[in-house]
């Protein structure tokens, strides 16, 4: 992957590094400068005696993202109470090769970490507006101290945000691997050089993991292979609005498909695990103000009801008659009474995981048929949580997690 001559020359000049921070990007010229400065300031403030490299792995941006990385420099470190930096700070901005996607960008970062023999690495998104220098300390120190191999993020997010995480990935990961990592697909991680080498050794770069599936893959690999795991509270996660044209269907399919694929690979690990336990936590918890989020519940419910009307036969082959009848009953409920029972949602996700494993349908079609169900569940959560505070909404997610843990024997028994 690292085939550009100038990058190779830079690597030879740098030789080795203690810390490597990777930033994947694609047309993020507007925001990446702030992220680069925050990383540089964090490394200067908290790791002045460690040799550090910042790597921007770009997917062929046409808006001058890589130039923005080159230009972004914190001129006045004194204002950040940084007295001096002993070790130099290097920046590498390079385009990656392979399938366009975040996963391919990360692969290039892992390769550089391996080449430079980095002890601790971190990756952060390029569209973050809420990143601060402290994120570097929180993601890297637990790894650099040799205590942990993987540090997942924990954020305060609006109760309506991160619905794939809240309704599928967090409950599923927690029930499967028995660890309460609140943001398994948060995207901002710290990890050891040892774990980076483990990631590199896997041949997954032609799959959905090379796209949106990378985050759940990194987390699941760390959990399933017994790497020491922690989470760090980073405050709020505020980033640029996603491209309105980004396809929810493809995003859901890539993330959930990757999680289901990993279930087959690590069946031997998760089948014995029951219940869940918390993981060590770093960072000072504080309350943050969050941007308001508007949700078009009517449109979500419309797609759910269309799905019930048009996809009934397909859903019945996955869910069975009983749950299909329950969905039919749900579809006729008026908006103010529309509630999606956690037990029904749990069975749906487990039945989809089983159908994915048994290949009882084209996997692409199977995952796409989950979209109307997911939107129905999301709409129900939004309606239910409308009058709730942040803590109450979090308590609802906790209930769902317990439902996933309680129903796990059904998944284990039917996994053949």
């Amino acid at each position, binding site marked *: 992957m690292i085939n550009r001559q100038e990058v190779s020359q830079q690597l030879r000049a740098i030789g080795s590094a203690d810390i490597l921070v990777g930033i994947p990007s694609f047309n993020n010229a507007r925001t990446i400068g702030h992220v680069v400065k925050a990383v540089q300031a964090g490394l200067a403030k908290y790791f002045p005696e460690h040799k550090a490299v910042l790597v921007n792995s770009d997917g062929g941006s046409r808006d001058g993202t890589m130039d923005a990385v080159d230009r972004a420099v914190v001129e006045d470190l004194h204002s950040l109470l940084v007295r001096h930096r002993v070790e130099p700070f290097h920046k590498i901005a390079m385009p990656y090769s392979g399938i366009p996607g975040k996963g391919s960008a990360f692969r290039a970062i892992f390769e550089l970490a391996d080449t430079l023999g980095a002890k601790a690495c971190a990756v952060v998104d390029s569209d973050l507006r809420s990143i601060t220098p402290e994120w570097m300390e929180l993601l890297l120190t637990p790894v650099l101290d040799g205590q942990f191999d993987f540090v997942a993020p924990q954020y305060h997010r609006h109760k309506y945000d991160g619905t794939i995480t809240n309704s599928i990935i967090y409950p599923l990961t927690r029930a499967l691997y028995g660890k309460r990592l609140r943001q398994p697909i948060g995207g901002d991680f710290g990890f050891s050089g040892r774990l980076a080498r483990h990631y590199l050794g896997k041949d997954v770069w032609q799959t959905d993991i090379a796209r949106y599936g990378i985050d759940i893959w990194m987390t699941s690999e760390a959990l399933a292979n017994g790497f020491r795991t922690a989470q760090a509270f980073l405050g709020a996660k505020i980033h640029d*609005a996603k491209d309105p044209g980004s396809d929810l269907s493809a*995003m859901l399919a890539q993330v959930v498909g990757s999680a289901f694929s990993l279930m087959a690979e690590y069946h031997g690990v998760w089948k014995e695990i029951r219940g869940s336990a918390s993981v060590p936590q770093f960072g000072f918890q504080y309350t943050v103000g969050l941007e308001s989020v508007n949700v078009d519940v009517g449109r979500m419910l419309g797609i759910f009801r269309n799905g019930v009307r048009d996809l009934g036969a397909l859903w019945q082959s996955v869910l069975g008659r009983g749950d299909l009848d329950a969905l039919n009953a749900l579809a006729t409920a008026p908006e103010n009474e529309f509630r999606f029972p956690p037990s029904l949602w749990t069975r749906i996700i487990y039945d989809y995981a089983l159908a994915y494993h048994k290949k009882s349908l084209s996997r692409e079609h199977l995952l796409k048929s989950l979209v109307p169900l997911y939107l129905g569940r999301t709409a129900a959560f939004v309606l239910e949580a409308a009058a709730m505070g942040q803590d109450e909404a979090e308590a609802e997610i906790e209930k769902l997690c317990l439902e996933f843990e309680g129903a796990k024997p059904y998944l284990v028994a039917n996994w053949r």
Partner: protein
Amino acid sequence: MQDFFRLIWEPVKEIYFTFREFAPNILAMLLIFLFGFLLARIFRGLLRRFLKIVKFDAWSDRMGLTAVMRKADMWRRPSEAAAALVFWFLLLGILMAGLSALHFQVFDNLVARFILYLPRAFSALFILIFGYIVAAFFGRAVLLTAVNSGYHYARLLAETVRLLLTVLVLAMALEQLQLAPGIVIAAFSIIFGGIILALAISFGVGGIDAARKMIERQEPAAEEKKKDIEHI
């Protein structure tokens, strides 16, 4: 008197010699029928087992083949139906082989034409099966994409795509069989063009209200997408 007996005996002798010359052919035909029939039955049994091992019935259920059979009032299991189809094909081949053993010009011609036609028949069968699977796959892909996009007439759109592909596949299969190719092409053009025209008319004239509603539905959706929630 001797001449009279010779007059009677000569045709009988001729028939006898002809029969003696022809008898091995008949025997060969009967043996071909007998052993061919037995072999075909054994092959049918083996094929049934093989299809059971590879879970052909479950695959047929998934691909919708079973549903098509039921619609055609065929209630056998797909694996049994496939084995029976192959069995009858083999019997047809054995019949032709047996008849060719008689060395009659008319049967030889028939067998030759049958053998020459076999590749076309198999190609047509392959086109039908493969085409059905492709039509079902694309129909479902269109249905899922349309439902997930919030399109109200998803089922209608998917069925239209499936129908168009099915018409195309049928025309290809008939063209392969060389059954009145001129009529097939004309019929295909009329049906295919007719469907497109009907769609255009229904959307353009008959479905003015529906089109207006669809456009009205699309407009606010495009506007509100910008302030939608973050799913990841």
